[in-house]
């Protein structure tokens, strides 16, 4: 039978929290592929600030929400860079999950009848194949 995904989802979220909360501090701070392509024609210093020349990136304007408390992946008011980045990452993961899972949960195809058996019955061939696969190896083995 189809297993519930919640244990897996919680495990995956923990991995995401570690990546965004800790590993993010070791990410490269150089401009990414898009930004570096737009810097072509300009000269930059060691901190990637434009020092001269002419390039598309010079047209960049401020972000509408540059004053957001989490702007630029930092938490305003937290001075420690490591903590600020990590905390913003943790909040971002939780917020993205809340928005995503919430919206997808509301949008989901609701089955008639009780939750588990109803879902299996209505999704027909796909669930059937899943079920066969889930039990298949056990039967074959």
């Amino acid at each position, binding site marked *: 039978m*189809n297993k519930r*995904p*919640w244990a*897996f*989802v919680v495990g995956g*979220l923990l991995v*995401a*929290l570690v*990546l*965004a909360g800790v590993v*993010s501090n070791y*990410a*490269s*701070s*150089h*401009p*990414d*592929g*898009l*930004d*570096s392509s737009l810097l*072509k024609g300009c000269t930059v210093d060691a901190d*990637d*600030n*434009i020092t001269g020349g*002419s390039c*598309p*990136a010079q*047209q*960049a*304007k401020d*972000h*509408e*929400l540059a004053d*957001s408390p*989490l*702007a*630029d*992946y930092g938490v305003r008011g937290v001075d420690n860079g490591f903590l600020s980045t990590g905390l913003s*990452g943790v909040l*971002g993961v*939780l*917020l*993205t*999950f809340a*928005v*995503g899972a*919430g*919206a*997808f*949960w509301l*949008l*989901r*195809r609701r*089955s008639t009848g009780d939750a588990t058996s109803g879902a299996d019955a209505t999704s027909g061939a796909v669930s059937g194949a*899943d079920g066969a*696969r889930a039990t*298949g*190896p056990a039967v074959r*083995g």
Partner: protein
Amino acid sequence: METLAMHISNGIINGPVAAVFAALALAALTVCVLRGRRDLDDRLAPMAGLVAAFIFAVQMLNFPIFTAGVSGHLLGGALAAMLVGPWVGALCVAVVLVVQALVFGDGGVAMLGLNITNMALLGTAAAYLLIAVLLRVLPRTSTGLAVTAFVSALLSVVVASQGFVVQYWLGGTTDLGGNLAGLSGTMAGVHLLIGIGEGLITATTVVTVAKVRPDLVYALRGLRRPVTTRAVPAVGGVR
């Protein structure tokens, strides 16, 4: 100039073109909602939320590429398409981009339609077309699955980068002096390198999920037989 922005910033593409792409993206996302609902059941909905959260996390991890002074990061279209399907997958990437633009000041709000078009729509669509072909051609082993993930992720990044080039051709705010091909080549070259990172991350993640919970990998549905790495059914069966 801060270097944490990862997506198209305000001022790079002019307002009218950005508005057209906003309308285009909204229409396409509506189609994704309508088609995606067929896939979204009690199991896929939380999984899709996880995929969005995971992509947000990994997008923060800019990795250096071989060119000095340039980094790359995951776009996530191929990863989402493999794990939750193309329609819901595009919505996952779009959720990430909306959160980044509205909360993290990354990617102009006025540029959101452009960023969604490139990364959520083009990237995911290109990836899924490749996934659909490769999974039928390649052997149904974890190696086949890894190659599918790697190739589709790599090429989807290059396709997404060319989406930007088209947008810049339509509404770029700097006169390139007719050197659009130069921008196209630069973007393609650097994103080919970034695509290698995208491919490695996508393949590692998808193969890991397929080992732990093969039933949660959308791309493995509908195949007549499961991807068999011997370990996969054993783990699935025991639990």
